[in-house]
């Protein structure tokens, strides 16, 4: 039975038209419009900041991917480079870079002669200062890799010195050259002459991505090879350790563990661990992995372990969230047809949770990829000039390499730091792409 009096309106009804907006409706609409505006402004700010960042990094960093080269004709004299004449790589390796000096000097003399029509003051010595100190070493490496070249006269490209490269990229001008001890206005004039003769060329430089780091004095030769390998090794270690450990821990905690004070404490601590500053993990790694367990300094294995510890909470938290999000009816259905708990989880729950788990893993990996602080503590900041052959060899990592580049005084390293950031972003982008592709494959409706 209903109370009849409750249904009669307290005040007599005022007739209103649907075509006219009431006071309250107007206010509500205005509030909504305002809120939309705020939202759009917020999104706009975010997008603008992102664009600004991208533009500044791209404009500063893209030049790092091109490099200036000087073309010469070089005669690889057999009597100097391979006295025994049997092209034995071991024999050739015994010839030191020092012995290449006269060969290079000869080739530069030839170049000077060719350029004399354009510029009268060109000498081999002026040219010598225009090529990179790294050029000798690279020539030697090329000869060792390809002994058949010995005895021939070949067209070769020397890496140009950082200042000449800077001139090509607009960083060095005649005014700055006056004040600079490393380059003279004469050399810039010679560079102009070489451009006319098509002896100087700026082109894409794979070595920036593949070569190891170079010393402070040779910015033109510095590359990201070692850092890329170090980062790739560490990502592989983090992926192989953090994903299985994290997923196993989450499944156990979420599906099997009894709910008592011990699991409560574990849960709280996992959440806390996610908020621990990363440098603390670095100290932990230094104390445990290096000092106590005696793993090598600067090695990707230590970096990988430290980053694994750092990534685990992220993976565990997101995995548990996605396990929780699987509707219980699916579990009931599986148990109802007589599946064991483990079958229900592995056959039905886990596939449904996989996209979420992958997302969490990639977020964790991305964090780990960009992490610098803990790596500084375990010595991955060191200058490493050799490619790591295993995860136990010294290496650096991309973000640390960025940090290293920014610490150097030569302005040529500015573009290299930004270039390294671009590589880091591309690396991240690729990881995200893989995640998206995998997620697409796992995604199902329910």
């Amino acid at each position, binding site marked *: 039975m209903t109370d009849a009096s409750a249904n009669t309106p307290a005040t007599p009804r005022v007739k209103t038209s649907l075509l006219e907006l009431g006071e309250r409706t107007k206010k509500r609409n205005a509030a909504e419009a305002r809120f939309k505006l705020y939202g759009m402004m917020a999104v706009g700010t975010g997008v603008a900041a992102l664009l600004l960042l991208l533009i500044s990094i791209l404009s500063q960093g893209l030049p790092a991917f091109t490099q200036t080269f000087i073309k010469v004709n070089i005669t690889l004299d057999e009597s100097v480079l391979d006295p025994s004449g049997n092209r034995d790589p071991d024999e050739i390796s015994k010839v030191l870079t020092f012995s290449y000096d006269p060969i290079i000097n000869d080739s530069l003399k030839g170049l000077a002669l060719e350029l004399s029509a354009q510029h009268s003051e060109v000498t081999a010595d002026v040219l010598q200062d225009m090529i990179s100190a790294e050029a000798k070493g690279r020539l030697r490496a090329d000869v060792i890799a390809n002994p058949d070249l010995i005895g021939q006269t070949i067209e070769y490209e020397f890496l140009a010195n950082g200042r000449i490269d800077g001139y090509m990229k607009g960083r060095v001008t005649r005014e700055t050259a006056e004040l600079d001890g490393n380059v003279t206005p004469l050399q810039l004039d010679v560079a102009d002459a070489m451009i006319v003769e098509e002896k100087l060329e700026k082109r894409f430089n794979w070595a920036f991505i593949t070569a190891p780091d170079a010393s402070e004095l040779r910015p033109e030769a510095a590359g990201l090879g070692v850092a890329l390998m170090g980062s790739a090794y560490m990502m592989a270690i983090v992926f192989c350790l953090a994903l299985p450990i994290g997923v196993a821990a989450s499944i156990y905690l979420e599906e099997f563990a009894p*709910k008592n004070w011990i699991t409560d404490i574990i849960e709280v601590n996992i959440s806390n661990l996610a908020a621990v500053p990363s440098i603390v993990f670095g100290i932990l790694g230094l104390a445990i992995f290096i000092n106590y367990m005696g793993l090598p300094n600067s090695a990707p294995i230590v970096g990988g372990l430290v980053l694994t510890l750092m990534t685990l909470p992220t993976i565990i938290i997101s995995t548990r969230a996605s396990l929780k999000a699987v*509707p219980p*009816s*699916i*579990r*009931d*259905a*599986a*148990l*109802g*047809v*007589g*599946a*064991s708990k483990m*079958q229900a989880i592995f*056959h*039905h729950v886990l596939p*449904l949770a996989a996209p979420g788990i992958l997302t969490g893993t990639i977020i964790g990996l991305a964090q780990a990829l960009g992490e610098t602080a803990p790596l500084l503590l375990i010595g991955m900041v060191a200058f490493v000039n050799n490619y790591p052959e295993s995860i136990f060899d010294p290496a650096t990592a991309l973000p640390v390499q960025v940090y290293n580049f920014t610490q150097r005084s030569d302005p040529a390293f500015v573009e290299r730091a930004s270039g390294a950031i671009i590589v880091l972003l591309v690396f991240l982008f690729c990881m995200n792409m893989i995640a998206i592709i995998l997620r697409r494959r796992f995604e*199902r*409706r*329910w």
Partner: protein
Amino acid sequence: MNDMRIVERDVETREIKIRGDKVQVFYGDNHAIKDVDIEIQDKTVTAFIGPSGCGKSTFLRCLNRMNDTIEGCRVEGEITLDEEDIYNKQVDPVQLRAKVGMVFQKPNPFPKSIYDNVAYGPRIHGLASNKADLDVIVEKSLRRGAIWDEVKDRLDAPGTGLSGGQQQRLCIARAVATEPEVLLMDEPCSALDPIATAQVEELIDELRTNYSVVIVTHSMQQAARVSQKTAFFHLGNLVEYNETGEIFTNPKDPRTESYITGRIG
């Protein structure tokens, strides 16, 4: 004892499949099932009726130990299946659930193909030795679920893409595919239209020849149509348990009478 009812005599000759003895269920401090004694017969459809929250689902879930998965749920007393205590420590609930299948209130097909939905149970229980056997089982089960004709051309389509009623019949097919001895159904028709309901009811009637079926329903008409025995629950007690005809025409307990005439609810 009562010669007038031939049907009842017929029913009473059947074996007892499930027996509950002083069953108590607690959710934490909430005493949800109180002192329930019941004997559920083989090859019979037994209906559980009662107002919302009286414990029908809870008791049904005791019969295949689905309550084990609920945090804080405790079952006391004894429930036997073929005279074996199902809450005995040696009993693995997984084996029990293979014998006592369940269809849930909300259709819950796996997010896999129709074929895989039905084949999943036989696969994990090793009922088919090869693909051909499995195909036979799947077809037979889908036919028994009265859905074969609708899906036979799209067995690879996802089960979740079917309509609600088709999904429920798919779930029934999935439940019978494991050849259970008892089939528990918790309001299987609450999401279905009258046509699908009629199909499911027809199906239940067919299933009776092989299985013991226990069905929870809020529809008196449905209970009257499909069941031979009816149990009326109220506030966690089993108030009355008898022949369906008897319950609806001649209830002994005043609470049963007021419920079926629509005064408690």
